[in-house]
């Protein structure tokens, strides 16, 4: 209780410029927002290698929630519960589904949206929905000489082959393009397999959507995120999928197998690969998605 010698110093900046300065001054600071990930890492307490903690709870501007005609800007320290409440009336259905599932209510009231993205934690279902919807993130990070600010697609951030905690960097906001879900030609599909809290290495999230373009063309988007490895996003830009094609069960099986090959190819260069059982389950979910699309079309 009284081992003050190992007690880290807590920095509580109120401005983002102060956080930038702290990145330059401190060697190995730990960013603390909700703490639901950091506190569950056994090695982080008491960890003498982390002499200073930057508590970003009070940084102004990080708790904003702005909605315009083209996009929604969500500050990084907004809790998942708060985002869920604020966006209940206008968020796309896949995002609402991802916000309402996953962790228990009490945890959602502490965990922040920035933390959910920055770490490979239990909220990867939210990340899957955000990647699928084409979200961008604004990041502040220290390059070694100066602190810079960039806006990058979330898919680029997550495609670094191993989702990780940002070192000397901070996600300040999530920018989500506005979606027009009123269009009756649009359909979205969301499925979580396994428990992300209890066993992330056996679970994944699948998010799919389609839009009818013209008479027989389908624009299909499907994103699968393996929590501990990475994601695979299929965007059918070449219009491979056709309405008559997905109406036959054997064709659906064929499309499922080609989807499997794509996943295996995507993760072939990764150090860790999704195990066969998980990929099999993912193919079944993809086929289920195509069947659901088929059902709606007929």
């Amino acid at each position, binding site marked *: 209780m009284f081992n003050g010698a190992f007690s880290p110093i807590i920095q509580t900046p109120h401005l983002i410029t102060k956080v930038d300065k702290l990145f330059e001054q401190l060697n190995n600071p730990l960013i603390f927002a909700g703490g639901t990930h950091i506190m569950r890492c056994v090695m982080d307490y008491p960890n003498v290698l982390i002499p200073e903690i930057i508590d970003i709870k009070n940084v102004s501007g990080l708790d904003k929630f702005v909605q315009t005609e083209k996009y929604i800007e969500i500050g990084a320290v907004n809790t998942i519960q708060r985002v869920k409440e604020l966006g*209940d009336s206008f968020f796309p259905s896949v995002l609402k589904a991802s916000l309402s599932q996953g962790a228990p209510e009490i945890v959602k009231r502490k965990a922040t949206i920035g933390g959910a993205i920055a770490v490979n934690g239990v909220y990867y279902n939210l990340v899957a929905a955000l990647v699928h919807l084409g979200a961008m993130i604004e990041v502040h990070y220290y390059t070694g000489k100066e602190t810079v600010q960039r806006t990058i697609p979330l898919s680029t951030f997550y495609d670094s082959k191993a989702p990780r905690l940002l070192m000397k960097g901070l996600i300040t906001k999530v920018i989500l393009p506005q979606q027009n879900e009123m269009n009756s030609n649009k359909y979205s599909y969301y499925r979580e397999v396994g428990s992300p809290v209890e066993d992330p290495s056996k679970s994944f999230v699948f998010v799919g959507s389609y839009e009818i373009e013209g008479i027989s063309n389908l624009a299909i988007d499907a994103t699968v995120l393996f929590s501990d490895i990475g994601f695979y996003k299929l965007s059918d830009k070449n219009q491979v999928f056709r309405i008559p094609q997905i109406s036959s069960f054997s064709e659906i099986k064929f499309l499922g197998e080609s989807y499997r090959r794509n996943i295996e190819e995507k993760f072939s260069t990764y150090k860790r690969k999704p195990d066969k059982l998980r990929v099999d389950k993912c193919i079944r979910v993809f086929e289920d998605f195509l069947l659901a699309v088929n059902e709606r079309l007929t």
Partner: protein
Amino acid sequence: MKVRFLLNNEEIDMNFNSNQPLNYTLMELNSKSNRYLSCNGKDCGLCIVLDRKNDEIIQSCLTPMFRLQGADIITPDYFFSQKVASYVKVAYKDVNMIPCDECIQKRTLLFDWIANVLETKTVKVNNQKDSAFYQQMEKANETRPQSPREKVQQYKDFILSTHSLIKCNCMTPGDILSITEAVLQRRRH
């Protein structure tokens, strides 16, 4: 780091390791009790406490000491021993269902907190800086047509999601919903 906070209505003003989890502190301060278990954040839910200042239930294993400056913490065993909890105990008798010895104190605290939230119908947010905006959003949500069935489902989801934190299998979702109903009725009386 010097931290001053209220623990079960008693003022604590001591030096703590700044990133020490609250459940370690509770174990140290109350050495006779071994109820503040540590699952290292695996969400066993047995270390929950009530943060009365923000009216939030928090997991003490995920709360570092530096976040407790000026907080008002009530532990489940203290709450269970108080008169305030008696109506929940009566509700258990009403439906003839009692949680197991391991989780009864925690569940009692959760039932009381849920009843509070459902009764006031206002969900507190951590940060109230843009409360005007928050109220606008609440109005926008209110204008969205919501069937009574949808509303009931929303409440059920909230109750079950809150209790899902406690991994003890002594109660089924049906038991939890019946007890919550009895608790709400007792509270109204």
